[in-house]
């Protein structure tokens, strides 16, 4: 539950989700669940020219773009470096790991 709690604290921040199909989506973290499924708001595709055929579904409308991303298709999430207490993360990890 460590990362679920961590992502809950990040709601409202800007993140970039990189999927396993190499598509990168930047947006505001709206919500997360225990499976680390992610809902993003105000999304846009990073480096759109590189993956035009994949980014079509997220493209071009002026209306608000939201999306739901299944946790299992995520490769990375690029996180905002500021406002993160790494000591808190270290302590939480030690407690979580001990639970086996």
């Amino acid at each position, binding site marked *: 539950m*460590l*990362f679920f709690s*961590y992502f809950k604290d990040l709601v409202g921040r800007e993140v970039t989700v990189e999927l*396993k199909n190499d598509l990168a989506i930047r947006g505001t973290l709206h919500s997360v669940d225990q499976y*680390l499924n992610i809902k993003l708001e105000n999304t846009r595709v990073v480096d759109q020219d590189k993956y035009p055929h994949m980014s079509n579904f997220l493209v071009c409308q002026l209306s608000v773009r939201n999306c739901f991303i299944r*946790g*299992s298709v*995520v*490769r*990375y*999430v*690029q*996180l*905002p*470096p500021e406002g*993160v207490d*790494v000591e808190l*993360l*270290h302590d*939480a*990890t*030690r407690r*979580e*790991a*001990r639970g*086996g």
Partner: protein
Amino acid sequence: MGSEEESAVKEPLDLIRLSLDERIYVKLRHDRELRGKLHAYDQHLNMILGDVEEIVTTTDIDDETYEEIVRTTRRTVPFLFVRGDGVILVSPPLRTA
């Protein structure tokens, strides 16, 4: 109880715990590698790394000579969550030259 249990190395995940707040090397699927500072992990090997360098290795084959052209692409990310299902291995950084 308490600190003795915490510092005992009993299982593989305990070995990773020794690397918290240290730089580590992570080998991922699809010829990717990461080097960064380990800030958090869980039993799935989901991780948060800081000051990360990602190295992607691609192998192209020349159409005429059929020789292998090995390329590496690097980038750095200040703070990265890595999903555990892509992780192959975790280790202290390799001593390269």
